[in-house]
């Protein structure tokens, strides 16, 4: 199945994000299709986390629309918006685990809220989810008693609790060692392939970006808008923007190991 033939699951049109008078990014337009691993890239402070907050209903746009399918997130009634959000799972940049609950209680909470499973069944699912992120045996730990990377992984387990259609990850691999980070990439691909999830993530990890992303948007820190998008493996060869090139190659020049484009020099597949 080619990228373009899959149905759009999230469409962003002319989105402008602002804090008061301070415009973070303007005129963002892109489409995430079902089954994509979509990456939001850009320098520190360019508004990636803010964009994520707009996509998950935490911050209202200054202008523009966010569509889930054909439904506009910010024009929907509260009930409808919650129904949309129920299809999503979110990993926050800081993990955002509930610090007054154990890891197991954290992961169990969405299950208790939205399923009719018995406590025993929930317990089993929670253990499975924690095992998937390499935290088997940590059920009864409190977030304050585990490391930063472990908090991230527990947050991931909580995001996956309800097997959501769309997963949002804010820098899932920041603070993880290379091996765990590679395992996380594998897990993300598996979530997509086996559960049919769509994944939208913010990441700076070039190896991850090239290994798993199949669509992307690049937010420029200075121009304050999206300057590139599409499959990063093609983007690196197609882009004329020096900032994008510098970001993707780390210093603006090609390396020997720069990945070859998936399809040589075709116009980028995803709408930007």
């Amino acid at each position: 199945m080619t990228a373009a033939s899959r149905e759009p699951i999230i469409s962003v049109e002319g989105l402008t994000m602002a804090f008061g008078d301070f415009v973070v990014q303007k005129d963002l337009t892109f489409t995430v299709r079902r089954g994509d691993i979509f990456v939001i890239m850009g320098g520190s402070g360019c508004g990636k986390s803010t964009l994520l907050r707009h996509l998950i209903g935490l911050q209202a746009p200054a202008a523009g629309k966010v569509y889930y399918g054909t439904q506009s997130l910010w024009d929907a009634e509260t009930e409808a918006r919650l129904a949309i959000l129920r299809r999503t799972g979110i990993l926050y940049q800081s993990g955002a685990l509930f610090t007054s609950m154990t890891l197991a209680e954290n992961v169990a909470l969405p299950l208790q809220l939205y399923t009719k499973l018995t406590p025993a069944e929930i317990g089993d699912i929670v253990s499975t989810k924690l095992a998937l992120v390499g935290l088997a045996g940590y059920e009864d730990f409190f977030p304050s008693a585990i490391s930063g990377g472990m908090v991230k992984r527990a947050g991931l387990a909580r995001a996956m609790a309800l097997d959501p259609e769309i997963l949002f990850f804010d820098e899932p691999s920041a603070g993880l060692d290379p091996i765990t980070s590679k395992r996380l990439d594998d897990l993300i691909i598996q979530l997509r392939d086996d559960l049919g999830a769509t994944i939208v993530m913010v990441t700076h990890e070039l190896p991850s970006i090239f290994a798993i992303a199949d669509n992307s948007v690049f937010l420029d820190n200075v121009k304050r808008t999206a300057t590139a998008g599409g499959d990063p493996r093609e983007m690196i060869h197609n882009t004329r923007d020096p900032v994008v090139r510098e970001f993707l190659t780390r210093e603006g020049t090609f390396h020997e190991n720069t990945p070859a484009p998936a399809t040589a020099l075709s116009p980028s597949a995803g709408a930007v």
Partner: protein
Amino acid sequence: MIGQRPALADLTKRIDAIPSVHRLTFDTESLGRWDSAFLTFVLGLVRYARNGQKEVDLAGLPAGVSGLIDLATAVAPHEEAAARVVRPSFVRIFGQACLDLARGTGRLMAFVGEAALSLGRLATGRARFRRSDLWLFIQQAGVDALPIVSLLSLLQGLTMAFLGAAQLKMFGAQVYVANLIGLSMAAEVGAVMTAIIMAGRTGAAYAAQIGTMQVNQEIDALKTMGLEPMDFLVLPRMLALILMMPLLYLYANLLGMLGGGLIAVTVLGMTGDQFANQLFHAVPLSVFVTGLIKSGVFGVLVALSGCMQGVNCGRSAAAVGDATTSAVVTAIVAIIIADGVFGVVAPPFSIQ
């Protein structure tokens, strides 16, 4: 400029005075070790020169310095950020304060309204929170508060009885010390004192707990899970205080009267029976009923001000501190005002 490094402002003034200067070079032959102060000085000079369209030649600087200068000037200073922090004038500060007050009042109203809606959802069984949280808060606001409430009300009873006894003795009316203690504890001191203790103890804790959750994005996580922070966080805390404050009020009365009795027996030579008898005649039941209602209301006020400051908390450690402070201040002000209202609307006894 051998020897002393001139102040940056002096130097730029001297350069400004000579309009023919178009290019700055550095001679650091005799420079030994250099530190961050030197780097800061050079950086200031470079920024000044580039703003004034003068050329700067970094070649004369030690390699380390010119490298660091390149690094520091690679990213232009954040324009909007600089524009966002201008020193405001007095008029502006005053205007801002008025706007903040109006906005704060609006937020308060909205919060009280939302809390009422949340109670409505509780009544119709649609409010979602963890029962285990409720029990925990009940324990924290109940049993855990007993030691401090015991200490303060016992001492309060002792002190009031002792001071009162000295006065009453002059009229030979020692027996009325029971009336004094009974009425003042039941009508006023019991409710207000427990409320103020709880504002400092529990209201502050609520603000800090919820504020930290705000900082840690936990509130965002709740919202995106479809949980109403009002139901999940505020409601159990409010219920715990509504339930526990009246009980604490009764308990404080008991201990306060016990303290009064101790003085009556030891200092005034009354018997325990006499004191108890006098007490029962002195305090009508209706005073307790008003007191119970009043302390329930105080419970709501303490919980609401704590939770409101927490929910509206900014995203920093300082903001959590501010939230805690204002939670206690708001709660105490609200308690005193409400107490005044109760005194007018439902006076515990009338003066003929």
